[in-house]
């Protein structure tokens, strides 16, 4: 025993993975798949830097075990830009100065992406709520909120 074979979808690819079920999704992404855009910060679900989208919902990859993934759909930061083309949201982050050191950025983008998928035109309060679980210690939240708001407006057109 001890090794299990998991089948799940990762960034649009069907994956079959033999691993220990008690590893965190965070470690599986980083160590097995080299998807290091998903960072480790606090490791206890407070900082949001490991945010990924699991079955359409923003979740902390540090709080999910590999053994829970069977049949799930996981999307990481690496799946936002395709063929070298940034998403509107990523572009807006750049244009609005929403990136400074960049460590919180993947998590912020994933939380904001999940929000915009669910609420196409969120209020400022909804935006703040959606990124409340993502800590930024250098950029400041204003530029990030601006970027999300501007993306919503741009996507609406």
């Amino acid at each position, binding site marked *: 025993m001890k090794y299990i074979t998991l089948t799940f979808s990762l960034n649009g690819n069907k994956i079959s993975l033999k691993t*220990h079920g008690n590893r965190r999704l965070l470690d599986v992404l980083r160590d097995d798949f080299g998807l290091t855009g998903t960072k480790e910060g606090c490791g206890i679900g407070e900082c949001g830097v490991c945010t990924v989208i699991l079955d359409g919902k*923003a979740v902390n990859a540090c*709080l999910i075990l590999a053994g*829970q993934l069977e049949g799930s759909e996981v999307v990481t930061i690496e799946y936002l830009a395709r063929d070298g083309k940034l998403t509107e949201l990523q572009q807006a982050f750049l244009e609005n100065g929403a990136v400074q050191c960049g460590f919180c950025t993947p998590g912020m983008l994933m939380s904001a992406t999940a929000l915009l998928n669910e609420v196409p035109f969120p209020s400022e309060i909804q935006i703040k*709520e959606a990124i*409340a679980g993502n800590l930024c210690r250098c950029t400041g939240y204003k530029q990030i909120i601006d970027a999300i708001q501007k993306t919503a407006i741009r996507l609406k057109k």
Partner: protein
Amino acid sequence: MNTTPEIMIAFNLDRALKLLSGEKSAPLAGGTDLVPGIHQQAKRFAAIERLVDITRIPELKQVNVKNSGTTIGAGVTFSEILTHPRLGSEYPLLTKAAATIGSVQIRNRATIAGNFVNNAPCADSVPPLLVYDAIVRICSLKKSREIPLQEFLLKPYKTQLQTGELVTEIFLPPPPQNFGGDFYKLGRRRGVAISRITLALLLQTEKKKISGLRIAAGAVTPIGRRFYDIEHQYVGTEISAAGLKFLAVNVGKAILEETGWRWSSPYKLPVTQQIVYQILCKLT
């Protein structure tokens, strides 16, 4: 690497109960407490050899709001509680508390039963569940039983849950009619904060008298608890500013009696009393 615990997914309740019947098995839902605990090799989870994922069990994901009362499946997440079309109007203190729990990411995973099943004093949903007289429904392979939440919670991090048992749902009696109420949480910051004080209060008034009162606190007491003595003492009394002040002071005293004087008491005691008073004033 450490290969325990093993993780197994149960897709129905029977299977979950079978997998949980062993001594060293424990259920895993949102994992917001368990997963970091296991990763950090916390002592309180050291004996677990098998974790049974219960997040895919349909029986545990139902919310049924009926005139005869409401059942909330143990595996219902706080996001699901917040987006439910009726829970907010029927049990507003519960949804207000749910909205203060963690972050979107946490609420997308964390479940209602997971919040109180470890009996952490800071479980935010507990005071509202207590004032709504929540009943915990429990199943094992052999039997099922029901216990009022207040009795289910024994002492910090200890409940009445036995080996092989699983909390399957929470039953809330119909919300008391003509009661006003509020939930209050104080943490070190507003978002993603462990609560330092939680209060839930329901009040009914008739002809300038208190005709119904339910008060519960969490975080500031060793476990979430109701103040039945104070409730009984004040039902039937006239509403006056002085009376409400004494009521609030007495809630503080009752808390102090239980916890003893702590380093945080000079701060928490007046805050608790003031907030109880403010809620009472707002509701009368």
